């Protein structure tokens, strides 16, 4: 957090509002994320995840990527979360908190995460010390569609197949027999 605040203060005066909004949303996201990995209630965890993803969508808008934000909301909060909840229920995980959410070696995660963060933080500061995002004007969706139907057409089609395969695969795997 301190780092974020420092970054906010170090920023140029213009668009204080954006910065403030960013800070608030960021704070919420981080808090929610911590809850996701730490709560003992699995359903709560799912709900906290919703918060994080929502925050991400919000950040997209701040970064001027509206279409992405929208599709994020649709896909994740609409579809993925529902999947998760189904998964939770079908596996009869007990609703409400229970023990044994962490495995024995959970403490190992802390140093690893810390190490990674140290590394990434350093690299980021070193790379993008204080260069500014020039234009936050929302990108017109047209550009995206041009990109998809132009240079990225093949990957796009490939992605559709991936989804199809995933759907079929999921069905095949989960079938009861």
């Amino acid at each position, binding site marked *: 957090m301190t780092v974020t605040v420092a970054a906010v203060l170090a920023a140029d005066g213009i668009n204080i509002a954006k910065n403030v909004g960013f800070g608030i949303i960021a704070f919420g996201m981080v808090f929610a994320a911590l809850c996701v990995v730490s709560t003992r209630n699995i359903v709560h965890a799912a709900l906290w995840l919703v918060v994080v993803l929502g925050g991400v969508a919000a950040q997209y808008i701040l970064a001027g990527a509206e279409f992405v934000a929208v599709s994020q909301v649709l896909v994740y909060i609409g579809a993925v979360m529902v999947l998760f909840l189904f998964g939770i229920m079908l596996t009869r995980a007990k609703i409400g908190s229970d023990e044994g959410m962490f*495995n024995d*070696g959970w403490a*190992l*995660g802390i140093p*690893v*995460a810390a*190490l*990674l963060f140290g*590394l990434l933080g*350093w*690299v980021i500061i070193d790379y993008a010390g204080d260069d500014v995002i020039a234009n936050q004007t929302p990108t017109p969706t047209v550009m995206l569609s041009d990109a998809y139907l132009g240079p990225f057409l093949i990957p796009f089609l490939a992605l559709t197949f991936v989804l199809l395969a995933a759907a079929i695969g999921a069905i095949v795997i989960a079938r009861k027999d």
Partner: protein
Amino acid sequence: MIAADALPTGFFLDYAWLIPLVPAIGFALIIGFGKKLPYRGSEIGIASMAISTVLAVGAVVQWMQRVNTADSGSGSAGGDGGALESVNGFARSVFPSATAGENGEPYVEPVIRTWTWWQNGGLEFGLGQHIDGLAVLMLSLVAFISLLVQIFSLDYVRGDRRYTHFFAALTLFSAGMLVMVLAENMVQIILGWEIMGLCSFMLIGHWWEDTANSKAALKAFFTVRVGDIGLLVGTAIIFFGANQWAIDNLDSHGFSVQAISAWALSGDAGTQVLLWGSVALFIACIGKSGQFPLHTWLPDAMAGPTPVSSLLHSSTMVVAGVFLVARLYPVFWEGLAFGPGGLNLIAIIGAITLVIAALLAFVQDDIKKVLAYSTVSQLGMMMLALGTGAWLPAVFHVFTHAFFKCCLFLCAGSVSHSGSHHSFDMKKDMGGLVKKMPWTAGAWIVATLALTGVFPFAGFFSKDEIIVNVGENGYTTLMWIAYLGAFLTAAYMTRATYLTFFGEPRGAAAGEHHDDVDAHTEEPHDEALVAAGHHLDAQGEPEPGVGHVAAARADDGHDGHGHDDHAHGPHESGKLILVPVVILAFLATVSGFTNAVPFGEDFEILKRYVEPRAAVVDLEDARLAIAGGPGEALQLIAPSAAAVDACGFAAPPDGAVCFFPAVNHAPFKWSKGFLALGIVGAGLLSAWLFCVAFYGRRDRRLVGLTDRFAPARWGYLFLWNKYYLDHLYERVIVRGVAYPIANAAYWVNQHVIDRMVDDSGRGTRQVGEFMYRNIDQRVVDGAVNASGTVASETGHVLQPVQSGKVNQYGALLFGAAAVAGIVLVLINV
């Protein structure tokens, strides 16, 4: 090239290379479809040998014409002009005639033809013929003897299990010797040399069902092979010594026999190279012709069928060593310095072999072993002659010795075939056969006289010539050793003769049937079987069992009708066996006159036609003579002869070469001749008396006889006196002197030298096993395995990491990523 007025060659000389080729093809044919033929291949063998004989004889005749033309000078009359220009610098002395002694005689160039056989580094090496006096002599000898031996074998090995293979091997054997005899270069000599080794292996091990035989074959091949190291090394040394010189001066190469001879005598050759080369080559000869340290394989080689032994010992295998020395005489002459007449390796080895082998011959009971040792000692005598500069006598002795030794072996075969029923044991199964087999006995006695060197027979001339020349060349001690050898030869041959043909018949010779044992192996268990055989006779009918099996083996080992012999005892052999024997006996009588020095120049046929002339040859002519186009007969006009005594003692003048050293020939001295005769006579007489007494003493029938009527009593007394003498001889001489020495020699032979051969073999194998076990398997291989072990151990150490827990994997993954990233960053900063 200069064909117009060249010396006459003619078909037989140009095509002499057919002589070995015919038997070679014959071999292929026999192997191919010998079994289908009516006589199962033997006819091919005999036919091929007959053709070779004819060709060889033709070659002899034409060679003699060639020499005559050269001597009479007509061959070069027209060519003198051409010759003389090229022969500037040579004062052509009075043109030589046949009677001018070798110093004036022209050089008669050999008929050389080569075809490219292989090439290396641009040099082309040939396969071809090198026909000179020595070659034609040996060719005719080998071909003829082989022919006779094959005829003999027709009857001798009839019904043998491997009749066809036997003839195939015999034919190839002769082919090998013939190839070597007309070899144009060293590689070809090696070719023939090794082919003979192979065939001796096949033939000695002919009855390989018996371990003893296959062991003997192995021993023979292996011992000879040890000597062959010398052949390979020597060839290499000589080749690189002579090659450059030969290329420069003769357009030839370092394998060509001619080139080597010229190089050796040219004076440009380094003494070290010559010395080591000749020593190495002589080691090969030691192995091949059974000289002193390596002679132990020869008696064991008697395990082969008798015809093989006779071929082996008369004209082929064992003579090869002598032939090699004679063929490359200049190399040895210079390398071992015969010229100055100092003691040298060859002479010493020859002398030692001569005596040792002769002593060994005394304690043999096996008739073939007696002959084997006598061969060894005769070879020693030839080597002695060669080593003392007596080239011609040595070759002469090879020539005569071939006839009578072959005859002796064939007689032994005939005896065992028809007389003693496949036994070769003189003491057990022979005696008194002179009545039963008169022809064989006669031939044997003639051959024996020839071998011991009694006057009119062949051996006298050759052996006496050797002894005289040895003495003349200043080797007095060696001369007396040679006399001693002659004495011993006479003695042991008499003993063998007596035991075989005189005295009382014993064992099989007396018609007993106890000889169902396989007599062609000298194995301890034979005695047991013989004893069993006696036992069988005692109780009349043979019982089935070991004796019977042995009988079966002996019979299929020898002729199939062996069983019939049981009916009637010893008898004279059939025509097929007798004819060759008699022919050989005849030749053993007359062949001595081919070089009968006592009767003057006109009888010195060999000297005139066989011995190469020690003449200085103009380089141009020589070059033409040696390096010709492929395959065409190489001719040249009779070259110039000049200051000849240079050859071999001083380097020839520039632009000229010598091909043979000037050996000197001792004039015949009747004094020495009679001395030799006296010594031989003494040997014969003493040995005869000794034999009669020593072996006749076993005669028990006289005892009863003397009591019955008077005339016998005198005879009895007479015998009785003899008996006293015997007592004296036996106690004092034999038991006191001869046996200990001979036995000691034999003991040393068996327990020291022979043991060394065996032990070295065994030792090598043990070393091999040791190295294999400890070094190869443990050390070297161990290192390899160790690396593998290390790998798998590390694997075990890392195993726990593979816990199968997803979370741990994740931790490791991200941790590793982080660390790697940090490392990268640190590096880049």
